[in-house]
C-alpha cells in the first residue's frame, strides 16, 4: 500500500512537473543568451488563456484541436516575450523591471484575465483537453505503468526536448555561439556573431515554451480557465533554471521535484493523510525561496555557471 502511494506521487510529480519544465527550458534558452526573463508567469498565463480559447473554438478532430491549442499558446507566449526582447535588447532597459512589467501587465489581474473575460473562456471547462495516454496499452503495468506509460503527449515531447536541447546547447555550433553571446557579447560581436539576433530568437523561443507550460495548465491540470491559474509556476520555473545550473537534464529532475511538492497535497489528502493543505501548498514556494537565497550571492552565481552577461544589455564600445 505504501509503495502504491509512492508510485502515485512519482507519477503525478511528472505530470505536475511537465509545465514547469517547459517554462524552465524556455528560461534556459533565454538566459543562455544573456536575457533575464522575469515575465514567465505572465507569459504562461497568456499562453494558457489563448490555448483555452483555441480549445473552445478550433474545430476538427480532438487531436487537431489540442495541437492548435498548443501552437496558439506558443504564439501568444512568443509575442509576449518578443515584447520583452524589444524592451531589453533594442531599448536596453533594465531587464528586471521589464520582466516584472510583463508579468504585471499580462498576469492574473491583467491582460490574460481580460482576454478570458471578453472571450468568455472562463464560463465552461475546456472541451478538448490534453489527456493522459495509455501508451502501448501498458498503463496498467505495475510500477512503471503509471509513471512512464500513462502520461500526456506533452510529457513525452518534453523528454525528447530535454535531449535535443542538451545536444543543441552543448554540441552544435549555434549552441556554442548562443553561449558565447550570453557569456561575453563583446567577444561574440568581435567574431561576427549577431548578439541582437541571438537574443531575440532565444527570448522568443523561451516565451513560446512558457506558452506551452500555460496551455498545460488550462488544458490538462485544471482543466478549465481560472484567472491566475498558474499560481506562481512561472516563478518556480525561474528558480528551476538556476536549480538546474542552466542545463536541461538537471532542470528536468528539478521540475519533477517541484512537481512532487505541488502534487503532494492533493495526493495525500485523497489518501486520507491528515496534513494541513496550506502547509503543503506553500512547500514549492518555500523551496523556491530557499533555492534562490542559496544561489543569489554573486559568488555562487559564478560557481554555478550562470551566463556572465546575464541581465546586462549589450552596447558596442564607442568612443
Amino acid at each position: 500500500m505504501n509503495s502504491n502511494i509512492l508510485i502515485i506521487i512519482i507519477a503525478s510529480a511528472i505530470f505536475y512537473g511537465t509545465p514547469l519544465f517547459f517554462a524552465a527550458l524556455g528560461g534556459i534558452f533565454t538566459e543562455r543568451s544573456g536575457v533575464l526573463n522575469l515575465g514567465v508567469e505572465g507569459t504562461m498565463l497568456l499562453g494558457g488563456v489563448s490555448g483555452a480559447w483555441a480549445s473552445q473554438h478550433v474545430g476538427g478532430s480532438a487531436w487537431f484541436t489540442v495541437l492548435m491549442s498548443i501552437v496558439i499558446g506558443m504564439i501568444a507566449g512568443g509575442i509576449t516575450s518578443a515584447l520583452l526582447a524589444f524592451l531589453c535588447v533594442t531599448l536596453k532597459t533594465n531587464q528586471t523591471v521589464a520582466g516584472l512589467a510583463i508579468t504585471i501587465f499580462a498576469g492574473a489581474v491583467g491582460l490574460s484575465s481580460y482576454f478570458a473575460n471578453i472571450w468568455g473562456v472562463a464560463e465552461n471547462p475546456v472541451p478538448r483537453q490534453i489527456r493522459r495516454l495509455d501508451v502501448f496499452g501498458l498503463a496498467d503495468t505495475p510500477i512503471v505503468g503509471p509513471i512512464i506509460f500513462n502520461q500526456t503527449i506533452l510529457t513525452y515531447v518534453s523528454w525528447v526536448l530535454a535531449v535535443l536541447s542538451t545536444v543543441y546547447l552543448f554540441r552544435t555550433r549555434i549552441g556554442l555561439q548562443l553561449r558565447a553571446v550570453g557569456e561575453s557579447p563583446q567577444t561574440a560581436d568581435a567574431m561576427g556573431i549577431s548578439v541582437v539576433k541571438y537574443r531575440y530568437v532565444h527570448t522568443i523561443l523561451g516565451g513560446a515554451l512558457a506558452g506551452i507550460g500555460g496551455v498545460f495548465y488550462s488544458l490538462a491540470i485544471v482543466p478549465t480557465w481560472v484567472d491566475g491559474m498558474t499560481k506562481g509556476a512561472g516563478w518556480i520555473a525561474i528558480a528551476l533554471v538556476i536549480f538546474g545550473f542552466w542545463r536541461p537534464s538537471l532542470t528536468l529532475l528539478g521540475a519533477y521535484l517541484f512537481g512532487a511538492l505541488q502534487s503532494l497535497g492533493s495526493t495525500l489528502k485523497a489518501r486520507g493523510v491528515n496534513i494541513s493543505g496550506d502547509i503543503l501548498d506553500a512547500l514549492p514556494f518555500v523551496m523556491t525561496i530557499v533555492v534562490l537565497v542559496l544561489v543569489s550571492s554573486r559568488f555562487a552565481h559564478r560557481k554555478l555557471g550562470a551566463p556572465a552577461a546575464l541581465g546586462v544589455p549589450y552596447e558596442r564600445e564607442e568612443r
Partner: protein
Amino acid sequence: MGLETAIKMTGIVKKFPGVIANDHVNLDINFGEVHALLGENGAGKSTLSNILTGLYRPDDGSVEIAGTKVEFNSPRDALNAGIGMVHQHFRLVSTFTVAENVVLGESDSSLFMDQKAVAARVKELSDRYGLAVDPSARIWQLSVGEQQRVEILKVLYRGARVLILDEPTAVLTPIETTELFKTLRAMVAEGRTVIFISHKLDEVMAVSDRVTVLRGGRNVGTVNTRESSTRDLASLMVGRSVEFTRVQREVPAEARSIILNVTDISARDDRGGIALQSVSLTVGRGEIVGIAGVAGNGQRELAEVISGMRAMTSGSISVQGEKVQSGKARSAIAKGIAHVPEDRLHTGLASSHSVEDNLALKNYRTMSRFRILKRKSIRAQSTDLIERYDIKTPGSQTPVRLLSGGNVQKVLLAREFSALPKVLIAASPTRGLDVGAIETVRERLVQAADNGVGVLLISEDLDEIMSLADRILVMYEGRIVDEVPAEGADRERIGLTMGGIKL
C-alpha cells in the same frame, strides 16, 4: 622579405565630436614586415587600427589591401579580407575551451563541430609559431600570456595575413615578451604582416622593421628601424618644434613650504595587478607639479589614492602633516584635498542630476537642517557659482549631462574650488575640451596655485604640463622614473623616460 604592399591607406580622416583623431594619414605597410605604430595616447593609433579592422568607418580617404580598394562595414569584413586584430583587452569567453574560442563565429555551415579536427589544427598552428597552449584547456585556467596566444591563434586560424597587435606587451612578463617577439618574427618570415602598436621605444626598436610615428592624428614620419634610434623616435613622438609658452608665475620662495606629502605609496589596479610601486612626491604651497606619462602607467590610480577613492597597500599621505586615511574620500576632503577626476561625467559628477545638486555634492551637509536639505541655500550657492565661474547653462536645475564639455568641467571646478582646498588633484582636466575651454581651465589652475593651493596636474598632454607646471615628474609602470624642473626642460629626455628608456 617581400616588398609587395599589403596595406595602403591614403588620406584617412576620422573625426569625433571635438577631435580629429586621424588627420589625412597616409600609411604603406608591406607584406613580411613588422611595422610599428608609435605614438602617445590620443595620437590616433587606435583609431587607425579600428578603421583597418572595420570597427570604424573613415570620414575620408581610402584603404587598399594588396592593391584592391576595400570598404569594411564590420570586423567580419576585415577578417574575411585577411586582417585580424589582437585586442589589448582580450575578446575571449572565459568558460570556453581554447578550441571553442578559436572556432567561434567561424562561417562554417556544418551543424556540429569536429572537436578533434579543430584541436589538431590549433595544435599545428601553435607548434608552427611557438604559441604553446593546450587546445582543451579552459580560458580561465590560462595565464594572461597564454590567453594572448589564444587571441593570436584565433586570428591565424581564420587565415589572417595581417595581424594588428594593440599594446600586446602591456600585460606580459619580460620572458613572455621575448617569446611573443619570436612568434612575430616567425610569422613575418612566412610573409605575413604584423602591425605592432606601442609606445614603448625599446620594444619598437627590438621587434620592428619599420616605424610610423603618429602625433596629434598625423603621420609625422615613417623610418627604417635600423637607421633610427630611440632618441630620434622619442623626439618624433613628442614633437620638437611645437611652440608653447610657459606661464610665468612668481611664487614667493617662503610660500613653497610642503603642503602635500606622499610617501612610498603602493596600490593595486582594478584587476588586482600592481599599479603603483613606492611612489613618493611632494607638492608645495602654490606649486604646480606635473605628472607626465603615457596613460595606463599608474596616473589614474595615483590620483585616486591621493583623493581617497582607492586604498593603498602601503605608504602614507599627509596634508600639512595631517595623515589622510587610506581609501577614505571623506577623510581626504576633510584634509583639504580636491579632486578633478579624468572621467568627469561619471566619477566627477552625477550626470543626470541638476547643476545645483552637483555643486552642492561636497558641502550639502552645511546646507541642511535636521538632515533635510535647504533648497534655498543650495540654489543661492548655485546661482553664485554659475555667475562667478561663468557656467553657461539654461538654468540651475538643468541636468549637467546636457551641458557642453567645457561647462561640465566648469561645474566640477566650481564645486572643487569653492571648498577652498589646500591641494588640488587634476587628472587630464582639459581632455576633450575645445580651445576656449582649455584656456579657461588652465587659467583657473594657475589662479588656484597663485592663491596658495598645491596643484598636482596629471596629463598626457606634454605641452600642457610643460607650460603650466613648475616641476615635472615622469611616471612609467607605476613608478616615478624622472624629475625635472619645467623651466628649460628637455622634451626629448621626457619623451625617452615616458617610453621607459632609463637614462
